[in-house]
């Protein structure tokens, strides 16, 4: 099995999802199964193929340098689990 429990833990940590032992136990074979299945893509010869960059031919448009938003602190903070003195508050971070 290529996806073992250690891999699940590493990925869960990268994805910031806390998993119980039981979930890790369950996810390892599930992910292994799914990833094993998608690996059939390896059969396709793509040596002269460019990865898709735009689904429908379209060019990136650029915006003018104009201020159109701002001064909406109340709206920005309205849904915050914890907002104090105009800031979002989070547990203290030690750098």
């Amino acid at each position, binding site marked *: 099995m290529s996806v073992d429990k250690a891999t699940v833990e590493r990925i869960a940590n990268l994805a910031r999802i806390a998993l119980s032992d039981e979930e890790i136990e369950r996810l390892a074979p599930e992910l292994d199964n799914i990833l094993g299945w998608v690996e059939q893509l390896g059969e396709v010869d793509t040596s002269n193929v*460019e990865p898709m960059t735009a689904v429908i031919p379209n060019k990136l448009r650029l915006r003018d340098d104009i201020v159109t938003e701002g001064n909406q602190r109340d709206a*920005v903070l309205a*849904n915050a689990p914890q907002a104090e003195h105009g800031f979002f508050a989070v547990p203290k971070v030690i750098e």
Partner: protein
Amino acid sequence: MTDLTDLGVRALRDGVRAGEFSAREVADAHIVKVAAAKPLNAFLVETPDHAIAAAKAADDARAAGETLKPLAGVPIGMKDLFCTKGVQSAAASHILEGFKPPYESTVSQKLWDAGAGMLGKLNMDQFAMGSSNETSAFGNVISPWRRNDGGNAALAPGGSSGGSSSAIAARLCPAATGTDTGGSIRQPAAFTGIAGIKPTYGRCSRWGIIAFASSLDQAGPMARDVTDCAIMLEAMAGFDPRDATSLDAPVPQWEAGLNPSLAGKTIGIPKEYRVDGMPAEIEALWQQGIDWAKDAGAEIVEVSLPHTKYALPAYYIIAPAEASSNLARYDGVRYGLRDLPDGAGLQDMYAATRADGFGDEVKRRIMIGTYVLSAGFYDAYFTQASKVRTLIAQDFDNAWEQCDLLLTPTAPSAAFGLGEKSDDPLAMYLNDVFTVPSSLAGLPAMSVPGGLDKQGLPLGLQIIGKAMDEQGVLNAGLAIEQRAGFAARPEAWW
């Protein structure tokens, strides 16, 4: 007097315009139906005030002798993936429970600007990840349909737009918005005997739609028939400078352009869609569809889309990869759920919040996406999938040398029972086998009801068109719809 909830978008619009009934009467009739349909669990939030306000505006406008807006008098359902100002928009997730956006999505705003009113927010698979509606954090939607075996097995309304499909099939609303990433409009439409179209990628703005997989997500209408889809899509589509992938192209008058003749059109039948183990009834319906298309004047050719079998695996790399990144913003800092265990630091808070706030399927896809992008795997998975995606798009381009449209079944089966596939993610993923390739290529595609299977459940036919040719897709849909004469509707048991 007719039950106003039996009428579709066009009939309601025209009736209000003609003064046959008031918009308020229409709104009230639907509000009552919605309130009485709790067992379906199709609505997460009911917004009768919104629908009534829109109705009042329509009636006032008519009284004042003004020209009515295109959707004046039409109340609709809004998938919970669309952000609606001041109304909970949670993508049917726990992590966004209680989130009331201070903004309105472009598509919903366009619908309100067109005069439509909102009956409420529709349940769905959590973050649009699922094909059965079983991943909603607020309980699954139940299809109004039942098998004709006398049993009461609860059936899946399809997903992810299952609240939309269930509500329309149950006559709770004449139309609703859906979003389609790999089939989430078309498969639920097929499962519930209604019509739905996913337009060309970029037709409808993604601004304000809670993202699942950005390069695939596309909004579209679901309604009882093709004409209603055309009317809705006209209101929803259009260039939006706030979405960098939005197509800067005028919105055609699709309703006015409807034409059920397929004379001069060539319809391709992709041979790779004859998958192993396809039920005979699906096979038979497909043949029926071919015959209907011929009857409507189309020429039929067999075409080949050789990379079809790789579409699903490519999709299940690309969509989770984008999702793993798109869903990183749900971290308990600025909105939504926060789970802060005693003594937890910032990173612990993230992990706890996301563990608590995301359902199993969402976690599974975030994990897959994180894995395929992680160091050492990126090229083998993501880059390879993006190259295969190019090949899949090329397959379609090659097919267009031979034909104008493609006709396929929408899904490999009729609606399945809730719980029947939920233990096996891969079996669930295979539901999207016919809808995913056109999603990967960004092409317009729609599902129209074709008939019923032996159990009395609806089956859908899918039409896929060239980029920007929604009109061709709608016309073929109309041709089939007229010949299928699909009139079945679920018995109200709820």
